[in-house]
């Protein structure tokens, strides 16, 4: 089973601050996805990264896939209360037919 370790587990910051959350594994991934889950809802896809070293930007969110494709990070610039939620990294192993989520980072952005 490929484990995805996310850190930090909890993060509470003030509006306007920057933050970075991490997703690490000992395995090499063909691709990795990031989802955000708000209370009472299912996760929603933010991005898919597939190439080692890849950087993708989604407004104030910047996603990076490690050169060795074993880790990924999500950086949020000038966080807003609307960014509050559970951030999950995810990998689908199509050969093994298994899917894995990390345990997530719970982000709270205070006004």
């Amino acid at each position, binding site marked *: *089973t490929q484990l995805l370790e*996310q850190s930090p587990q909890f993060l509470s910051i003030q509006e306007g601050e920057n933050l970075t959350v991490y997703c690490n594994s000992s395995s090499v991934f*063909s*691709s990795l*996805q990031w*989802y955000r889950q708000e209370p*009472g*809802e*299912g*996760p*929603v*896809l933010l991005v*898919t990264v597939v190439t080692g070293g890849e950087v993708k930007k989604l407004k104030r969110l910047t996603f990076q896939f490690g050169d060795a494709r074993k880790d990924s990070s999500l950086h949020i610039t000038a966080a807003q209360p609307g960014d509050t939620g*559970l951030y*999950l990294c*995810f990998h*689908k192993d*199509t050969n*093994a*037919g*298994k*899917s*894995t*989520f*990390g*345990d*997530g980072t719970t982000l709270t952005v205070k006004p």
Partner: protein
Amino acid sequence: DAGVTQSPTHLIKTRGQQVTLRCSPISGHKSVSWYQQVLGQGPQFIFQYYEKEERGRGNFPDRFSARQFPNYSSELNVNALLLGDSALYLCASSLVAGTGELFFGEGSRLTVL
């Protein structure tokens, strides 16, 4: 277009009972996956079905079973419920069985007393 719909949204059962959860995927999506999410943790993969065939199974006991119907909707059954089965059960649909985007429903909240 309607998103992924799950029913029931909330239910309470007692230990030893059986439960059936239902999921209707987005129109045109042929793959359905089920996940269990315990409070404070990420979702844990239970099953994936594609074109009515099981394509993947997570590390869950045989008390958990699922099936997919010709209209691509799906049911998750859990027998002999334990207290530890209390969780949010999420259904996700996708166009194909590979690494595409998963679209999640809002989940079924199961409480086992």
